[in-house]
C-alpha cells in the first residue's frame, strides 16, 4: 500500500520536472500520461508583417527580413518571401521554422506536379487551396502551423492575391496584410489603392506602408525586400533599407509645452 503511494508520488514528481512551456498541453512520454495528448504550441523565431497588392501587370509583395526571438531582434537576414513554381509567390509572418516546412511541402507539391509532364501547372488558386487545407487540418488537430501566409500569383492573365492563417481563415482581396500590417497598412491601402496601378506606383505605396511599420512596429527591421510576380515569372529584389525622417521641429523639443512629459 505504502509502496504504491510512493510510486505515485515519484510519477507526479517526474511529471512536474518535465521541461514544459506555458501552453495548454505538453508533450510527454505515453507512459507518464494521465490525460489526453494536446499540442497547441508556442512560437519562437517570428517574422512580422507581409504586405501584398495587385497592380497592372500582376502582384507585388513586400516584407522585411527580420526574425525576432521574443523581444530580441535576433536575425536580420531572414527570407520571408519565396517563389513557388512559376506562377506564385508566398510570404509569411509568424514562426519561421513552420514557414520553412511549408515551403518544403510546397516544393514537393510542385515537383510532383511537374513530374506529370502534361503541360499543366498548379496556379496560385490551387496552391492557396492546398495551403488552406493544410492549415485548417492542423488547426483541427490543435497542432497549428503558426503562420499567416500571403499568396500572390498570375496565371493565364488572371491575377490572384489571397491570405490564409493558422486557424484556417482565408480570403482573396486586391490588397492584403498580415500582423501589424492589418492595422497600419490596410487603411492606407483602402485610401490609395486603385485598379491597374503601375509598377512604380505599387512600389511607392508598399514603401509608404513599410515606412509606417518601421516607425510603429517594434519587431520591424530596416531591411526590406519587394517581390514581383507577372505572367513572365517571379522576381525578388535584393535586400535594401529605406530612409527614415526625424528632422521634425516638434521632435527636437517635445516637452516644451509640458515639461516632464514625453
Amino acid at each position, binding site marked *: 500500500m505504502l509502496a504504491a503511494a510512493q510510486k505515485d508520488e515519484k510519477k507526479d514528481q517526474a511529471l512536474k*520536472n518535465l*521541461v514544459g512551456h506555458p501552453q495548454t498541453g505538453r*508533450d510527454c512520454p505515453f507512459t507518464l500520461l494521465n490525460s489526453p495528448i494536446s499540442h497547441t504550441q508556442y512560437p519562437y*523565431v517570428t517574422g512580422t508583417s507581409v504586405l501584398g497588392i495587385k497592380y497592372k501587370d500582376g502582384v507585388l509583395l513586400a516584407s522585411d527580413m527580420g526574425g525576432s*526571438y521574443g523581444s*530580441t531582434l535576433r536575425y536580420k537576414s531572414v527570407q520571408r518571401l519565396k517563389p513557388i513554381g512559376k506562377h506564385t509567390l508566398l510570404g509569411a509572418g509568424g*514562426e519561421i*521554422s513552420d514557414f520553412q516546412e511549408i515551403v518544403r511541402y510546397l516544393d514537393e507539391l510542385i515537383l510532383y506536379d511537374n513530374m506529370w509532364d502534361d503541360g499543366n501547372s498548379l496556379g496560385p488558386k490551387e496552391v492557396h487551396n492546398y495551403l488552406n487545407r493544410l492549415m485548417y487540418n492542423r488547426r483541427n488537430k490543435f497542432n497549428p502551423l503558426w503562420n499567416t501566409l500571403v499568396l500572390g500569383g498570375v496565371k493565364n492573365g488572371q491575377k490572384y492575391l489571397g491570405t490564409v492563417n493558422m486557424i484556417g481563415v482565408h480570403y482573396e482581396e486586391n490588397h492584403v496584410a498580415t500582423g501589424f500590417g492589418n492595422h497600419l497598412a490596410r487603411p492606407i491601402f483602402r485610401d490609395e489603392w486603385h485598379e491597374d496601378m503601375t509598377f512604380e506606383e505599387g512600389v511607392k505605396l508598399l514603401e509608404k506602408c513599410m515606412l509606417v511599420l518601421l516607425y510603429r512596429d517594434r519587431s520591424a527591421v530596416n531591411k526590406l525586400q519587394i517581390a514581383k510576380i507577372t505572367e513572365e515569372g517571379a522576381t525578388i529584389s535584393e535586400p535594401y533599407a529605406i530612409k527614415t525622417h526625424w528632422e521634425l521641429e516638434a521632435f527636437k523639443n517635445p516637452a516644451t509645452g509640458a515639461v516632464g512629459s514625453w
Partner: protein
Amino acid sequence: MDMDWMNAPHSMGTTIIGVTYNGGVVLGADSRTSTGMYVANRASDKITQLTDNVYLCRSGSAADSQVVSDYVRYFLHQHIIQLGQPATVKVTANLIRLLSYNNKNTLETGLIVGGWDKYEGGSIYGVPLGGTMLQLPFAIGGSGSSYLYGFLDQAWKEGMSKDEAEALVVKSVSLAIARDGASGGVVRTVVINSEGVTRNFYPGDKLPLWHEELPLRNSLLEEASSEAEPMHP
C-alpha cells in the same frame, strides 16, 4: 523547498558561438553546466564532434542536446557509409533541424552547426528553439549570447584571418562569462578547415580581465602585479 536545485534539470546556461573566416570556421563555448544554482560540471565540453569535419555547439538542456547530437551522429555515420565521402555541413544541419523541428514541443535546446566540406568550404548554421535553420556568417547562442549582440554588431568583420577569428571568439565568450551567471569556466575553441581540426583550451586565468575584475593572486600575502601591495604583519 530549498532542495529544488537537487531535482532541477541539468541546463547548460551557456555561451556558444560559431564564426566563419576565409578558409574555415571557428567554434567556441564556455564550460559551465548548472543544476539550478549549483555548478554540476565546471569543465564541460559543449563542442561535440558529429563527424571528422562537422562539429556541434550545444546549449539549453544538457540531456536534450546530448541525445540530439547522438542521433545525428548515428544517422550521419550511416549516411556517410552509403554516400562514400565525407558529409556536408548542410546535410548535418538539416538532420539537426529535422530532430529539433519535429520534436519542438519536447526539446529545449539551441544548437550551432559548424564545419568544412569541399563544396562550400567553411559554413555555420544556427538551429535555435523551434527548429528554424539559418545559414549565417556567424552565430551566437545560449543565455550568455544576450551580452554579445551589441559587441559583435561592432566587432564582426567580413574576411577575417584564422587568428583574428579565433581571437574574436575567445574575446566574445570571455565577455559573456563576465556578465552571465550561467556561463563560466574555461573557453574551448575548435578550428575546422581543409587541413583538419584543432582543439584549443583557454583556462580562466589566461583570459583578459574586464571591468571591475581584479588580477588573480595566490594570497593576500603575496603580490599579484606591480599595482597591488601585499599586506604585511
